[in-house]
């Protein structure tokens, strides 16, 4: 069972990736992408690649989430079309 950690890391990364892809709302996706970054960093360490794990951590913990959230904030700051027909209320 020497490959068990790699196996678990792999399943975790795949689950996180699937969750990140399928969560439609950008804020929720940003959070799950952050967890995906963590899962990938763990998988890389279990696959004996600390350099790649470091770069994934450096990119995935602060840089990408900050960019995504600032984009969401900029996009959300523009109110959706004020046309009266738009009764869907606050859109994510």
């Amino acid at each position, binding site marked *: 069972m020497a490959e068990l950690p790699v196996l678990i890391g792999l399943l975790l990364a795949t689950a996180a990736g699937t969750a990140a892809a399928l969560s439609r709302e950008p804020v929720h996706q940003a959070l799950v992408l952050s967890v995906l970054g963590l899962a990938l960093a763990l998988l890389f360490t279990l696959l004996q690649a*600390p350099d790649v794990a470091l770069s994934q951590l450096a990119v995935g913990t602060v840089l990408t989430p*900050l960019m995504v959230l600032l984009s969401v904030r900029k996009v959300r700051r523009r109110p959706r079309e004020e046309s009266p027909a738009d009764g869907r209320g606050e859109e994510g």
Partner: protein
Amino acid sequence: MNKAVRLWVLGVGCAGVAVLFAGAFRRLPEFGGSHHPYGARAVAAALHRHTANVVSSVNFDQRSFDTLGEQAILFGAVLGTVVVLRQAKDERRVPPEPAVVAPTVRGYALVSLPLTLLVGLYVVAHGQLSPGGGFQGGLVVATALHLLYVAVDYRALERLRPVPVFALADAFGDAAYLLLGLAVLVAGASFLGNVLPLGTFNTLASGGIVPLLNAAIGIEVAAAAVVLLAQFLDQALELVPRDGEHR
């Protein structure tokens, strides 16, 4: 095409690609096999050049032309983002609102800022020895600067990190990498060749040109990340449409 057709096309495409993958993955060498000829040659070449971290040796010595292209991508993407997110004619710049920050968060962030900076510099400096290198260390240093945004607010960050200086540092790091290669070429060896004294194995100055290229990439990545985040922070916190109401 409407949604149904698109789903159909996508379904057929994904099924076909899945079959393609299955056929190929079954014929791959088994996972965890011990046959890595290129890897063995790379380890031998790295040890020959007294570089302890073989990945850094591959990145900055054996396949340094890849890293040349890679840092050009980073430089080009940051320049592209600066161009795409520039202030348009119908926008104006407003000072960002001050933020109220809980004292514990402020304290923690201000304490961890120098520590993060130290860790980042450590990772860059030991690039050719322990895991890490110019890319990873540069990003950690850039993140350290943005802890100031988390600790205080964007106005404080803007005062302490003038974007033009970092844009210059970005260009300097990029040019330094190229000038190092050209210097070696002028000195008679081939472009980006590792002709500097190799130093003793597993010491800070070992690896000949690797630590220098590492430092150049570290400067460029740190500056590039700061400029990149500056564009997004400006867009989100400062630029508003000129005609006042949020059109």
